[in-house]
């Protein structure tokens, strides 16, 4: 974006502004585009969700407002704006106002590091992934503040549950990404995508693979287990079923949102849906190769890039469009899976949810980190790092051996943990023997 604007201002109009001014304009322009994209994503996702879940239940879903109900979210938005904004008198006004803002702000930040297409990334930070998760943990503070500010016993309980859930499910999410970062070796999201070219075997491991953009991490056992753990943690992070405890209407009415109405309630709604979109996007990027897909690599090779400046611009646009199409298709598929899960499952109780997170997901991701280490050891390291015997093998051979070992390790870990976890559940539920013993001889 910087060179486009630079070319526009300096050469076409010849104004000769200083480079920092141009980069300022460029970043401002990108920021405004992202600020438009986020709400539109939210509008489309609410509509998509209501139609999809209606179809799953053999009904039709909104189809009265506008053609096929397309303007339904706009109607919801208008309703959200026009509703009167009630602030409970005993609540302290400032914190009540700041709460939703602090919840929404991080979700906008996270768009900064999201690559939409080849070369189309707002800000290519070399610690992009870590930035993404650091910012997402800030919204928990906003939840806490809004829960406290509405001075209502239920809201506070709901807020504490929500924050406890978000914080405790951040650990498996970050750990599962740790495994992938181990395999790729870099925290930057753009590198992550570049390493997912190739056909089922990423070209980073075996250079000879024809680059069809399908070398996704999910085809490796490490990546697959990380994908499952990450997606479950993302469900919990975005408060989707089966982890939507905070606004579990059947227990505590609407959790931390009870005392909000009108625009502030809309903000919570916006924050939740944008966060869901971002989590689906990150799942698509890390495990399913973001904008990687057949043809994008080839198109981008001809385009104008820092490496080959004399390609022709048309390919930039083509590669960009195809890349964005692949990226959005994958993201919407994952959002469809989120809606699908919402349609199929009941809700977990708060203590079961914590149990599941700490006793099943975190050990699973730790094992996955070990298998990632084995994978890196076998495929990338040579004699320098002390693995002399691997030196002679062909890359395909090394990839195969690594695949088999990690696959066995992961499956064994999964089965073992599932058995231990279900026994622990039964144990918890069965009668508490030692308590009964103690009480019998007490009487």
């Amino acid at each position, binding site marked *: 974006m910087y060179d486009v604007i630079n070319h526009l201002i300096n050469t076409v109009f010849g104004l000769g502004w200083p480079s920092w001014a141009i980069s300022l304009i460029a970043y401002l322009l990108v920021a405004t585009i992202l600020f438009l994209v986020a709400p539109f994503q939210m509008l489309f996702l609410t509509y998509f969700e209501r139609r999809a879940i209606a179809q799953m239940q053999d009904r039709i879903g909104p189809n009265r407002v506008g053609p096929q109900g397309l303007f339904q979210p706009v109607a919801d938005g208008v309703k959200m704006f026009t509703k009167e904004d009630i602030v409970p008198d005993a609540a*302290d006004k400032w914190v009540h106002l700041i709460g939703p803002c602090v919840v929404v702000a991080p979700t906008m930040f996270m768009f900064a590091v999201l690559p939409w297409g080849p070369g189309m990334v707002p800000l290519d930070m070399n*610690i992009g992934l*870590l930035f993404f998760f650091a*910012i997402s943990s*800030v919204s928990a*503070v906003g939840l806490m503040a809004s829960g406290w500010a509405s001075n209502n016993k239920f809201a506070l309980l709901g807020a504490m549950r929500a*924050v406890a859930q978000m*914080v405790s499910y951040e650990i498996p999410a970050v750990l599962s990404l740790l495994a992938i970062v181990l395999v790729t070796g870099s925290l930057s999201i753009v590198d992550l995508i570049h390493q997912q070219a190739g056909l089922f075997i990423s070209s980073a491991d075996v250079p000879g693979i024809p680059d069809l953009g399908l070398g996704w991490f999910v085809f490796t056992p490490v990546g697959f287990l990380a994908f499952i753990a990450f997606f479950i943690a993302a469900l919990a992070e975005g408060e989707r079923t089966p982890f939507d405890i905070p606004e579990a209407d059947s227990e505590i009415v609407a959790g931390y949102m009870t005392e909000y109405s009108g625009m502030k309630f809309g903000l919570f709604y916006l924050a939740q849906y944008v966060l869901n979109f971002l989590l689906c996007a990150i799942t698509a990027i890390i495990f399913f190769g973001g904008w990687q897909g057949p043809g994008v690599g080839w198109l981008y090779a001809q385009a104008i890039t820092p490496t080959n400046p004399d390609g022709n611009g048309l390919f930039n646009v083509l590669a960009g469009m195809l890349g964005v199409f692949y990226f959005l298709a994958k993201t919407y598929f994952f959002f469809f899976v989120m809606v699908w899960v919402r349609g199929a499952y009941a809700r977990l109780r708060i203590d079961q949810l914590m149990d599941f997170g700490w006793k099943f997901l975190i050990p699973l991701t730790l094992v996955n980190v070990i298998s990632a280490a084995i994978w890196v050891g076998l495929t990338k390291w040579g004699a320098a790092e002390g693995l002399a015997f691997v030196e002679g093998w062909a890359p395909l051979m090394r990839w195969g051996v690594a695949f088999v070992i990690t696959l066995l390790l992961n499956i064994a870990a999964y089965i073992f943990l599932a058995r231990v976890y279900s026994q622990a559940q039964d144990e918890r539920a069965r009668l508490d023997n030692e308590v*009964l013993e103690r009480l*019998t001889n007490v009487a």
Partner: protein
Amino acid sequence: MDLLIQIIFGLLSALVIGAAMMVVTVRNVIHAALWLIASFFGVAALYLLLEAEFIAVVQVLVYVGAISILILFAIMLTRSNEGDRLLTKYWWASALIALGLFGVAFLPTFTGTTWNMPQPTGPAGTPEVLSGVEELGRGFVSEFVLHFEIAGVLLTVALIGAIVIAFEERSRRRRVLTLAEELELRKRRQAAESVD
């Protein structure tokens, strides 16, 4: 360009100092906690200004993401009746100490000493080579591997310690028996009575 950076630095330091002052003086503890979070954000931005990206992000992740929530949880769990006086009896004494320390000790030392700034070696335009995340990671497993392990052990100790201190033992909590357990209990008692 330098002017822009100076303006930004001025704003950031004003944010950090202002928020810190508010943390100390504001009456309601929750507001104090929120101001604390604001100052953490200020400090993170300062790190970015000093081009220590990784530290800035870790600061946001750890301080704003975890410690402030811990503080908020603690405040809400211990809502005691609002103390009438905000500050302890001898608050002016501690104020004097702080000011004295700042005026007498820090200011002259920092401004007085001459720091041996490294002269820029290469031609003017070359960006200095900064030790980014790569070197940090490599350093953690080579030179600083001992410190790294100790930090790990410290964290686990703190984790277990916090749980042991804060957690109410099961016995003290009154155990509520479900219907099935009561029935079981009655059966056992009858069995016990019939035996003796």
